[in-house]
């Protein structure tokens, strides 16, 4: 489960993908990750797939959280899982979250699309983050609080 040693705080890379500048959730996520015992590596806004790959490789990240809020996600996140695998990072846990598509589309459809992109979990317009933190702990087998 992830290349990071369990004792050391697992590294989680997060960022907002595309020409997206919505930073509020990103800042809150970064604080929450720290409070849940993770080491957050925050790429901030206006990121690209390669930024996530580089950061994941350099920091030995256990997980990558990709945020998209302005609707560009459906394009920007295509093939994300495959790109990670190519870079030898297939083991890294991948979440997508935010307002993942343009306009109003059924959540089930959005989840299908992003799961198809290779994300392990998809959080389309969740009103809270508690579920995600719990899932992350579970997926990284990390129990330290």
């Amino acid at each position, binding site marked *: 489960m992830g290349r990071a040693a369990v004792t050391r705080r697992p590294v989680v890379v997060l960022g907002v993908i595309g020409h*997206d*500048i919505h*930073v509020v959730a990103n800042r809150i996520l970064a604080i929450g990750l720290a409070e849940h015992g993770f080491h957050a590596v925050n790429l901030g806004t*206006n990121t690209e797939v390669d930024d996530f790959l580089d950061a994941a490789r350099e920091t030995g990240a256990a997980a990558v959280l990709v945020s998209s809020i302005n609707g560009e996600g459906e394009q920007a996140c295509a093939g994300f899982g495959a790109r990670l695998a190519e870079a030898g990072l297939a083991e890294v846990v991948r979440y997508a979250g935010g307002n993942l598509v343009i306009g*109003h589309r059924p959540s089930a459809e959005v989840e299908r699309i992003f799961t198809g992109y290779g994300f392990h979990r998809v959080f389309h317009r969740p*009103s809270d983050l508690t579920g995600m933190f719990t899932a992350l702990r579970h997926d990284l087998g990390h129990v330290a609080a």
Partner: protein
Amino acid sequence: MSLPDRDARLTDPAALAAERDAVLGGSGLEPAAARDHLAGLPERRFASYAYRNRPGRPYLQPRGGFPSLAKQRLLTEALAEAGADFIPLTVDSHTRHNDYPAAARLLARGLAEDRDLLNGYPLISHGHLATRELYRQLDRPVSLRHGTPDARLLVETALAAGITEIEGGGLSYTLPYSDRYPLDRALGHWQYVDRLCALTGPAGLPVHRESFGPLTATLVPPVITVVVQLCELLLAAEQGVTSFAVSFGQTGSLEQDLAIARVLRATGSALLSRFGFAEVELRLVYHQWMGAFPDEPALAWQLIAVGALIGRLAGVDKVVVKTPDEATGLPSVASNAAAVRAVRYALELAPHSEGITSEVVEEEADLLASEVNQLLAHLFEHPAPTFLQSVYRCVLSGAIDVPFAPHRDNRAALVPDRAAGRQIRILDPGAVPISEEDQRRERKLLGSRLPADQPLWQRLLRDVRLLA
């Protein structure tokens, strides 16, 4: 001293022409195209003219931009029919970041797949001639809505398309709308845009400029909102702009909204006279709540109505309208038109109520005026060579600090918070020069902090989603 000054005007015609050629290179847009097109438009297509003839109620203007010409035409007609006084052209985020190839690619793919793959109208991809056709029969002004550090080509195209109101500014379209675009370069590009707007309108019908007041729409203390607006007003006046709207976003506090409206108008007019820009016609625009919206339409309608009423009580010149789809995603044509009808109706529910005030409003206005004057004094007394340089250095020093701005140059040392009465307070000013006295007033008005009953991330999320 670095006071706002006419001499800062980019008056060298050759230099401006050279830069324009560089900007327009390859776009197929002739330098004189915009001027000629605007000269042929009827008065009612000019925002500056509309503002001079405002009826006894605020104007209202929705947002909206679809990738395809066909759908943008549908939206334009529906919004006009619903009673929008200004028609929006909201530009997509790729174009806002000058990634014109991505915008063109996704426009084409979207048209092929009959799907919207852009969150706005790709103005550069469509070009000025196709866009002009959207407005051939239009009897009211069109406003460019975007969020673009380098808007030079975008504005050249917009003016040539017959758009007569340009939103934005070097601070308000850089700090909240980009993470690393060099701020000094953006400020320079917006001097270009201001100069272009000053020169392109026909005599007596100037192109109108509007700054973006809401900034990050997240716990922005009124003093920051007001000072950013005044900076962009003065920077535009330096370049010869003569019709300008300062604006602000609904704060979540009725009293602070009334206080901001009063201080923003008064200080704006005073500064224009003080620095010899008395010819500038100053307007005030109010954005309905720009923060996280509630999911349920019934609740969203309540927030929209209260925003409309507050805009009316604050005596603003224009209200920018939100839709019940805000929390969900880009609004449908139908829900955008319904929002226009609803706000137009709500604005009539308290006609002639501009005299509304209270002790709390007077106190907020008094504190705000004091904070604004201190920050302006700091700006004007700055040793920088020009006013623009002073503005730039005040951002770097943290004297101007916008909470939740993604931009790397934003100091983010200012800690805001929200009092029980919903007023936005300054918990820690960081490097923003606020007097000890005013810092004490801010903390007293904040009142006792709620006990940290939850982890910080949850308290922050709760604060930010206060009205969601």
